[in-house]
């Protein structure tokens, strides 16, 4: 026993420099990552700034109940699910279709130019993206102008100020910003396809459609499944910065999601406990959803992320 302790002390002494370097890092991670986790406790207390959380009045699940019972809850849920589902269907399929199309291109040069261009919107902030989108979609903007000129519409469509366009606009804008970037993972998976598979298929008379169906799709299927699981787990994440930039008072009943509600109550209005409770509830349900969809995929599809 004492030999073991001696060994440990010797080891520690030998590695004291590394431990010394670790100290500030450990302090950092405790302060900036673990203290906020402890702060989640305030969801169960009537937190007052300046007091220790546990000194405040304990309210239990009161704030969670209040939130679920509140009249805005159903609207928030509707908006969150609507935009998530649009994202998980159209928004999810688009990069896959795009990746397959890129994979079918013959010119290497065009492929490179196309891919490099398609990443560009991923690297701009939502504020910049919003600024451009406002210019494109305003009543005098290029999109309305073009639609009027080719005679599709008579008067400009108020994309930005009428709520009923918001969900579709949100989905399309997200796609504009993300297709190229999301497709990288599929395209790189496709580049790893074993050519001999296709050669073997060709001997049996496989067509190009056949190559896509029997070689390309099965190759990227595990990636698709994994990303979809993560997508389902994040079904309650229906954008945040996007809504702060693109949304306005006129369209609020369509863009207000759980995250923006939590931000508005928790920070703008100063109801810290309510905001935290809403955020915490969202995260817990999210974790359960990831586990559930992962379980489903492992049972039914033989692929899983953990």
């Amino acid at each position, binding site marked *: 026993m004492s030999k073991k302790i001696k060994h440990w002390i010797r080891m520690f002494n030998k590695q004291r420099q590394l431990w010394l370097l670790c100290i500030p890092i450990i302090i950092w*991670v405790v302060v900036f*990552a673990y203290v906020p986790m402890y702060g989640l406790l305030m969801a169960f207390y009537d937190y007052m700034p300046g007091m220790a959380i546990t000194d405040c009045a304990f309210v239990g699940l009161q704030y969670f109940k209040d939130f679920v019972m509140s009249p805005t809850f159903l609207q928030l849920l509707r908006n969150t699910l609507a935009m998530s589902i649009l994202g998980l269907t159209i928004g999810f399929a688009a990069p896959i279709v795009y990746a397959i199309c890129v994979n*079918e291109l013959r010119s290497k040069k065009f492929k490179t130019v196309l891919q490099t261009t398609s990443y560009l919107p991923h690297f701009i902030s939502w504020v910049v993206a919003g600024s451009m989108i406002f210019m*494109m979609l305003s009543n005098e903007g290029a999109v309305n102008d073009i639609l009027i000129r080719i005679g599709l519409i008579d008067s400009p469509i108020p994309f930005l100020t009428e709520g009923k366009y918001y969900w579709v606009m949100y989905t399309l804008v997200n796609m504009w910003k993300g297709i190229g970037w999301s497709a990288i993972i599929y395209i790189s998976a496709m580049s790893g396809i074993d050519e001999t598979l296709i050669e073997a298929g060709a001997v049996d008379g496989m067509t190009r459609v056949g190559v896509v169906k029997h070689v390309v799709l099965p190759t990227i299927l595990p990636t698709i499944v994994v990303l979809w699981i993560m997508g389902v787990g994040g079904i309650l994440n229906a954008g945040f910065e996007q809504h702060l930039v693109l949304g306005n008072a006129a369209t609020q009943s369509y863009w207000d999601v759980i995250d923006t509600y939590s931000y508005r109550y928790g920070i703008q209005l100063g109801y810290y406990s309510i905001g935290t409770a809403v955020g915490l509830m969202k995260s817990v349900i999210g974790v359960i959803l990831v586990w559930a969809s992962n379980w489903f995929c492992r049972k039914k599809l033989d692929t899983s992320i953990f």
Partner: protein
Amino acid sequence: MSRPFYIKQTKAGRVFDVCNVILLILFMIIVVYPFINVFAISLNEGADAIKGGIYLWPRKFTLNNYKYVLNNSDIYRSTVVSVLRTVIGTVTAVLGNALLGYIVSCQNFAGRKFMRILFLITMYFGGGLIPTYLLMTKLGLVDTLTVYWLPSIFSAYYMLLCSSYIQNIPEALFEAARVDGASELRIFGQFVLPLSKPMLACIAIYAGVGHWNSWFDVNLYSKSGTWDTLQIILYRMLNQASALKDMTDSTMLAEAMRGLQPLTIRAAITIVVVLPIIVIYPFFQKYFTSGMTMGAVKQ
């Protein structure tokens, strides 16, 4: 990959190829067009631009928007803050994550697993917005430059990226240096850093772009306006433009008299904000996929 020669080319296949190229060119145009459009508007006279109908180039060319933007003291100030934040944030994130990556890659280090787990947990659990916000308030970081870079020095994701790279450097090299009496910091500075330049470049780009683009934390923590960045100026302009559309603000009216409009000024600011990204874009594009694939082989 495209079509290998041994797969028969059919008529339908040829039609598809043509349509495919056309559609993808169209896609490329849709991706790039908003950038061109905003550039054209930024070079147009304000009063003329609000009538709409500007597509690819300005109708009434002027540089007044840029003159206004470049002479505006608020914008000048916030540019300095943006640059400061990006430089400090990038340097600290690169050095911090490389150091952390080195520590968790030292094969014999007893605390290796502990440090890894300590950070991996933060990948899956977090305190969320409000507890973090209250913490920053309590630490007195509101209205400081520190709040932008200090909470984002280390990240579990970059740690994994760094350690997967550093693990490929032969451990014997570090061991030899240790035997010769080099301190850990010296090994880090003289061996790890020079040997992992591509990794450092990759993190620098991601962290740098992230810092330059970040605006929500500025919105939260820059209360007095001393540490406003360019992004937040643009954000406020966006919000105000939609809020003040039919209000006759006196300063806006005065600007309108000089042929300036919020729309064209906003366009000019947008270009100023996005320009650094576009300028460094050709240099960093070779690191895009390397970052993605490095992340993929994390364990």
